[in-house]
């Protein structure tokens, strides 16, 4: 015990790596040395290798599969087809949206790249050779590559495997107030409309998906090392699908080479590798190649958005109406809360004060890969915000109003929180107009408008695009959010050892977000234990508390809150220990960072580390020993960050090429745990926004061929193309219901960013009669729009060159 005559100096929270410290990342130490441990880095004794044979056709009946030549290749241990999977009741598996998905095709193939067979061999080269030796006889069927084709008269029924499925419609869904919205439109002075296609995109982390399944016959335990953002959901699903006892399943998510939503769903490759390991009683590794990843795993977007705003002449928005047609591919496999068929699309216009709104949504099957559907986005929020900001730009133009003034006039005001949106969300807090003002000042709005007019006179096309977004992050409260019935809480488990060092585990799983660094900072903030004394572990279901994983920017809002709450439980017990050590009653004990002291004698105190030692060596009579606890956090609401992104561009009228002149980002994500990491997240999100706006998309030709099945066709911006970004953090509105006032941030820029780039190009084209060019705003599309003065659609099928 520290008995000093003077009160010790207070701990400097930044020095111990607490809240607000731009602490250098713990995980970097292994990554910069090439000592990360990704799934493909795992080698187990006796391990075999699996490769998957994929369908070359988008839609075809399988007449026969001859695997005999594959079996003959030396080094081949097993060849699996759908027929063999069916004998184990594993030819089909449930999806996260209560549909079914083929593991290995039995009756038909339904998209190009669908899994047809798998080979397990000594070596991946041998397995690939054997895949080539499998002879599949297909009877081609007409392919469907968009919702219009899917709903046309006489369209073939893609899901003829489903009893009662007579067409290609998956669902019709609606939300909002139809009557009120109709009334608003009846009263409108001006009705402004827009129609868009948000192209299919792929999250495309550089690391593809993979698994190493290791079934041990002797112990009965199945261990699966795999690229998953949500290991506990996988464990639950494996227990239910494979009918294995849950305590005998261990899912380990090692280092993940980027996720962005791509590594949430359950893929056939995982399932087949697990079955192969059980059958062969040896570890089986499956590592997808890039083409396999791009053509078969969780895509995002691919949605047709049409909507309209009811406007008063003075600029007030009276109502909003929209309809979406979503192309889900061959299986409805969205990873999203069960209750919402089109995700959180109805978060659209949450930042604007709109009296009435109504949304209808239809989902259809097509001959394309099934979804994950979220990509750096909370369940369709990207589409919602893109539609919102493209619609706002069109409406302001229709009214002849200034883009900034129109937004400011319709924003939810600072004193109007919590604000109920017309679709029923409760936004928690924000300073929207202030963020906009910061952004306008940073881009030098007035001067740019003058410069733009001057440039026009010389035939130069400059443009400025504004986009704002608020996003429901941190799914979510158990009243509304579940996946397959499992409520979307999260968890943290903190063990403080006797020397005052600690290990923290959560139900989330970092994929680059830096949890190993930031979670320690929350503990430091709550307990005064230096962040460097806290080891963080995630991703092993045998040790981590049950949680729903990392996606939808939910880690800080949910698991991060759990870290704060478990730290507070630890502090509550430490207070009792402190009272015992100080020989006073608990009521007389006060807390300051890292130390308890006697209220009447502040120089008499004990540190948290001394309390930890006492928990194992000198606890009071009747007290349970130890200083360990677990917290499960069920958030009361979602967190609602806000951002303004403003982009200026110059379009070359001769070529349609556009260059970014400046990008300004103003993000209000509440309290920032580690500002360096937050800024890294924002820059990454802006880059993906720029990518989607400028070049990155997956499309299909009329024959159902996937265009964008490799990095030569699926364009991602490099350091050369990517513009620089100017970030602003002046506006901080703490989340009123989060224990440390933080809001989600990981996705904001990818959600709000695309419309800023597109709006900028469209602004440069103002006066040409062009209302919309679909993303990506490729130079040839811009050039075509300038030539024809018409909108340019990017919806599949792609036009052929002939």
């Amino acid at each position, binding site marked *: 015990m520290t008995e000093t005559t003077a009160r010790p100096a207070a701990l400097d929270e930044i020095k111990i790596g607490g809240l607000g410290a731009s602490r*250098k*990342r713990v*995980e*970097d*130490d*292994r*990554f*910069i*040395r*090439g*000592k*990360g441990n*990704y799934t*493909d*880095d795992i*080698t187990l004794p006796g391990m075999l290798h699996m490769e998957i044979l994929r369908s070359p056709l988008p839609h075809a009946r399988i007449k026969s599969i001859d695997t005999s030549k594959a079996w003959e290749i*030396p*080094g081949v241990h097993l060849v699996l087809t759908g027929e063999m999977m069916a004998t184990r009741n594993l030819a089909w598996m449930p999806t996260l949206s209560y549909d079914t998905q083929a593991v290995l095709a039995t009756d038909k193939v339904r998209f190009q790249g669908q899994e047809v067979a798998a080979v397990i061999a*000594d070596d991946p*080269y041998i397995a690939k050779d054997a895949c080539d030796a499998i002879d599949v006889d297909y009877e081609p069927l007409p392919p469907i590559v968009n919702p219009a084709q899917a709903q046309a008269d006489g369209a073939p029924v893609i899901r003829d495997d489903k009893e009662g499925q007579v067409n290609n419609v998956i669902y019709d869904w609606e939300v909002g107030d139809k009557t009120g919205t109709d009334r608003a439109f009846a009263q409108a002075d001006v009705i402004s409309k827009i129609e868009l296609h948000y192209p299919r995109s792929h999250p*495309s*982390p*550089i*690391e*593809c998906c993979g698994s190493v399944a290791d079934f041990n016959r002797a112990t009965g335990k199945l261990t699966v090392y795999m690229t998953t953002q949500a290991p506990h959901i996988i464990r639950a699903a494996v227990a239910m699908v494979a009918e294995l006892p849950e305590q005998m399943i261990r899912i380990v998510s090692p*280092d*993940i*080479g*980027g*996720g*962005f939503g791509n590594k949430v769903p359950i893929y056939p490759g995982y399932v087949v590798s697990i079955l192969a390991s059980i059958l062969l009683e040896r570890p089986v590794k499956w*590592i997808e*190649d*890039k*083409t396999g990843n791009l053509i078969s795993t969780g895509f995002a977007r691919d949605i047709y958005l049409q909507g309209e705003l009811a406007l008063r002449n003075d600029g007030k928005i009276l109502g909003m109406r929209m309809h979406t047609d979503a192309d889900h591919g061959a299986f409805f496999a969205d990873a999203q809360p069960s209750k919402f068929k089109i995700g959180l699309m109805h978060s659209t216009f949450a930042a604007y004060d709109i009296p009435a709104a109504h949304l209808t949504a239809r989902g259809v099957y097509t001959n394309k890969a099934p979804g994950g559907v979220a990509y750096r986005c909370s369940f369709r929020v990207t589409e919602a915000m893109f539609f919102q900001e493209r619609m706002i730009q069109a409406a302001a133009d229709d009214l002849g109003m200034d883009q900034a003034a129109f937004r400011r006039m319709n924003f939810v005001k600072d004193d109007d929180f919590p604000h109920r949106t017309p679709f029923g969300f409760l936004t928690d807090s924000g300073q929207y107009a202030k963020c906009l003002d910061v952004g306008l000042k940073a881009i030098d709005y007035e001067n740019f408008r003058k410069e733009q007019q001057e440039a026009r006179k010389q035939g130069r096309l400059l443009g400025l695009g504004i986009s704002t977004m608020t996003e429901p992050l941190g799914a979510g409260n158990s009243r509304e959010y579940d996946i397959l019935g499992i409520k979307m809480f999260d968890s943290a488990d903190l063990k403080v050892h006797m020397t005052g060092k600690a290990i923290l585990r959560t139900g989330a799983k970092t*994929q*680059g*977000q*830096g949890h190993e660094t930031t979670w320690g900072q929350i503990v430091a903030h709550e307990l005064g234990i230096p962040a460097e004394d806290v080891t963080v572990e995630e991703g092993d279901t045998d040790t981590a508390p049950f949680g729903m994983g990392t996606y939808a920017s939910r880690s800080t809002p949910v698991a991060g809150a759990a870290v704060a709450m478990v730290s507070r439980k630890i502090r509550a017990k430490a207070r009792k220990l402190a009272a015992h050590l100080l020989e006073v009653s608990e009521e007389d004990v006060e807390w300051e960072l890292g130390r308890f002291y006697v209220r009447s004698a502040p120089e008499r105190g004990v540190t948290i580390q001394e309390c930890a030692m006492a928990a194992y060596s000198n606890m009071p009579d009747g007290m349970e020993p130890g200083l360990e606890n677990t917290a499960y956090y069920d958030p009361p609401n979602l967190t609602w960050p806000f951002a303004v992104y403003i982009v200026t561009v110059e379009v070359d009228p001769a070529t349609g090429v556009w260059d970014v002149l400046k990008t300004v980002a103003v993000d209000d994500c509440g309290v920032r745990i580690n500002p*360096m*990491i937050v*800024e*890294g997240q924002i*820059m*990454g*999100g*802006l*880059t*993906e926004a720029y990518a989607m706006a400028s070049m990155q998309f997956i499309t299909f030709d009329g024959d159902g061929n996937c265009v964008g099945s*490799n*990095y*030569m066709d699926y364009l*991602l911006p*490099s*350091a*050369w193309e*990517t513009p*620089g*970004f100017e970030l602003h953090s002046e506006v901080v509105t703490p989340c009123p219901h989060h224990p440390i006032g933080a809001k989600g941030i990981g996705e904001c820029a990818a959600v709000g960013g695309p419309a800023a780039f597109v709006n900028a190009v469209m602004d440069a084209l103002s006066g040409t009669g062009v209302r919309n060019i679909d993303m990506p705003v490729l130079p040839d599309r811009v050039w075509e729009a300038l030539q024809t003065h018409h909108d340019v659609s990017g919806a599949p099928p792609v036009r052929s060159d002939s």
Partner: protein
Amino acid sequence: MTVVYDDLGDEAAEEVPMRRIRFTINGAKKIAEIEPRLLLSHLIRRGVGLTGTHMGCDTTNCGACTVLVDGKPIKSCTMLAVQVDGREVTTVEGLASMSELHPLQEGFKQEHGLQCGFCTPGMMMAAKGLLDRNPEPTEEDVRWALSGNLCRCTGYQNIVKSVLWAAEKIRAEG
């Protein structure tokens, strides 16, 4: 050393032609018996067991597999292992010893030049190739030199800063 192989029969042994190559990796001399079709990235990862070199795209686009061959950055996913016969390979593990860091490694940590870490070894090797031939690069030089390496997390701004940080440190150390 003991190596036990599965007996795949005499026919299998005849079917697979093997080549013997000698090469140096991170200063260590090696002999390997390999199939001619083996990719260099697989020789490094599975043969030598150095897993810091990552496989991203298989088509020379992403650069996660970048290593130095005779001092020049190349993408090991599209080079055959037999092509390094008699040559010298440097991987991320050869940048520095475990106790000491190369200025590039320090720079990436200092400037938050990585998030998931998957592209990082390739980025650092491509950057090493740049700094070896141009010790005083501009931001534009760095962006051009890294344009064959893709990152999905960072937006590159901090990667560029990391490389410039390293260049500065190397210059300062003389």
